[in-house]
């Protein structure tokens, strides 16, 4: 409430006042004019009439802030004048001017509601007296008006206001409080709006805060109760606002927001799923594109490049005898040229093999013999590098339809990769066995997943090393054409691409399982002929 008062007081300092002077003596009127003229701060607009009747007419039109009136006028005498003016303009302060220094009259006038009583001859001596008096009169009058207005303001406030003393006894309820909390008087301290008020007051006093707010449920409604405590008068005042609707709205908004958020999340999840799907498809398309591009490139330029490479190599061959005799450096330079040619040619060959894979010549073949042939080729290199070779082929492994030559290329590629991963030696194991698929064996680094159905028997061939392993980040890329971690000249990144193409050409799958630091296992699965699959060991493959 305090702040409201502050707001109202502000309006008082408006500097311009309309003053009505009721005076039948022109000389006295002149005197008043002069007295008012002396003031510097406040500007007064003086309107002069010489009869009460005229004054009342003027007052009826409004806009007068203060009345200066003589008591003895031709059409009205004494206190009657005051009464008539007061009746016409209640609330407008009146200052009585008189020629007499009559105490008795003065008191009576003041009792009638007159603000001040001035003797004219004093004004003549102290012109300021009039101005000061007028200002006080207006201010006093305003103050009284405000108090009345404020009291009724509080009373008429649509929100409940209540006041109790420090012990919780009600000292004031405004109209809203009386009607909205009709049960307040009987129920005393257990009533929701009174409950805990004393504690609240103590808390406020301890914390030094001016007010606190709590929510009070009452008969299906919710009130916000602002509580303040006035220690000097030991009064607790509450201002209550019915926030039921607001609360309901907030609740609805919260529910709506939650529903919207849930819908949003769902939509986002769906979008994300769709996006992931798109990305997967795209990745596949990109891969396919890459392959196609590689193929085109290969057939287009390979032969054009191999011819000049051949010529360069011939040049090297031609210069060799002469230059070798001229020192080691010359020989070295020639060797560099030769190696560059070989590397270029390796790339071209890789491209060609990849882009136009030679057709398979499938024959019933023993995988054990292919493994043996491959191991025989790398034996010397393994010994040199300190790598132990292990072979384990299960007894029940049947002959399968293979292109012996190409499958050997597959194993060699895998073995050479394994060797490269074991620069300080290690163990390379090749295993082959039959496996009945229980579930589609989805593994990381898997190359193709859908070739086999559960229940089918496949031939598995594993090449496992104890090497460096493959970091998780690059594992998905090892099958990509030209993906290599080897320095230029040592690898071109087509080994696994070609390997996969050959295995897939056999209707098989290949995947790499690897953990960085823990070696790598390449797993090839190849179809076993259906006859055998159904009849068990007895029947021979075609």
């Amino acid at each position: 409430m305090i702040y409201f008062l502050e707001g109202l007081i502000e309006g008082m300092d408006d500097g311009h006042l309309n003053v009505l002077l009721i005076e039948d003596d022109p000389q006295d009127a002149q005197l008043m004019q002069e007295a008012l003229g002396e003031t510097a701060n406040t500007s007064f607009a003086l309107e002069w009439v010489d009869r009460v009747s005229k004054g009342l007419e003027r007052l009826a039109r409004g806009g007068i802030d203060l009345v200066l009136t003589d008591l003895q006028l031709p059409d009205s005498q004494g206190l009657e004048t005051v009464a008539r003016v007061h009746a016409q303009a209640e609330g407008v302060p009146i200052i009585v001017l008189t020629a007499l220094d009559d105490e008795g009259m003065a008191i009576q006038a003041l009792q009638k509601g007159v603000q001040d009583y001035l003797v004219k001859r004093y004004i003549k001596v102290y012109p300021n007296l009039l101005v000061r008096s007028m200002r006080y009169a207006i201010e006093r009058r305003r103050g009284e008006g405000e108090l009345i207005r404020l009291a009724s303001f509080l009373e008429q406030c649509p929100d409940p206001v209540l006041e109790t003393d420090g012990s919780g006894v009600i000292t004031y309820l405004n109209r809203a409080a009386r009607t909205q909390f009709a049960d307040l008087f009987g129920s005393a301290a257990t009533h929701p709006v009174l409950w805990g008020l004393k504690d609240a007051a103590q808390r406020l006093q301890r914390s030094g805060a001016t007010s606190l707010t709590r929510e009070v449920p009452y008969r299906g409604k919710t009130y916000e109760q602002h509580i303040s405590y006035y220690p000097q008068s030991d009064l607790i005042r509450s201002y209550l606002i019915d926030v039921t609707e607001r609360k309901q709205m907030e609740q609805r908004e919260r529910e709506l927001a939650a529903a919207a958020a849930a819908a949003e999340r769902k939509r986002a999840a769906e979008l994300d799923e769709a996006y992931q799907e798109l990305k997967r498809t795209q990745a596949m398309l990109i891969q396919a594109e890459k392959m196609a591009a590689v193929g085109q490139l290969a057939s287009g330029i390979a032969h054009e490049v191999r011819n000049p490479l051949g010529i360069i190599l011939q040049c090297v061959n031609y210069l060799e005898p002469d230059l070798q005799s001229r020192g080691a450096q010359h020989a070295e330079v020639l060797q560099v040229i030769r190696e560059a040619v070989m590397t270029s040619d390796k790339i071209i060959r890789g491209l060609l093999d990849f882009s136009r894979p030679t057709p398979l010549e499938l024959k019933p073949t023993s995988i054990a013999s292919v493994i043996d042939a491959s191991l025989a080729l790398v034996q010397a290199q393994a010994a040199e590098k300190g790598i132990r070779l292990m072979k384990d082929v299960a007894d029940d492994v049947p002959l399968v339809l293979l292109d012996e030559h190409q499958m050997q290329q597959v194993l060699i590629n895998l073995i050479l990769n394994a060797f490269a991963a074991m620069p300080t030696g290690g163990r390379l194991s090749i295993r082959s066995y039959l496996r009945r698929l229980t579930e589609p064996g989805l593994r990381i680094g898997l190359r193709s997943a859908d070739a086999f159905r559960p229940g089918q028997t496949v031939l598995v061939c594993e090449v496992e090393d104890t090497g460096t392993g493959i970091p998780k980040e690059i594992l998905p890329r090892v099958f990509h054409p030209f993906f290599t971690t080897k320095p230029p000249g040592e690898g071109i990144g087509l080994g696994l691409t070609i390997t996969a193409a050959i295995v897939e050409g056999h209707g098989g799958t290949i995947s790499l399982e690897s953990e960085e630091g823990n070696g790598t296992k390449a797993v090839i699965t190849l179809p076993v002929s259906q006859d055998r699959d159904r009849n068990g060991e007895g029947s021979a493959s075609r």
Partner: protein
Amino acid sequence: MAEHLRRRTVLMIDDEANARKLAKLLLEREGYRVLTAANGEEGLILAKVQQPDVVLLDILMPKTSGHEVLRRLQEDQDLKDIPVIIVTARRGEQGIAASFRLGAVSHIEKPYETKDLLQKIQVALALAQQEESGRATGDA
């Protein structure tokens, strides 16, 4: 016999001028007599006229392809016994298979080391000589 003292003649048929030039330099340094032809027709005429001991034949040539040359060499009674080594930038076993079917004795892919080519030439010459002496005894 003076046979092995005779300078062996190599006929190279290749549309690539630099390839011919280099082959000539290298093989002559090894003691061969080298004839070169820039296309199939020229090559066939040279073969007929000069009767080389061995033919180095490029496959990918404009107009008359290496395979065509090979076929016509085989058809010619005078030329069919001359061993032919296919020299090609082409990759792939299909091409090789076709070459062998048409009667080539050997095959080398560009780029190659001269020593590898020399080895193939020696083998081809040795085989041809064997066959010739076989025929000679058979005829006798």
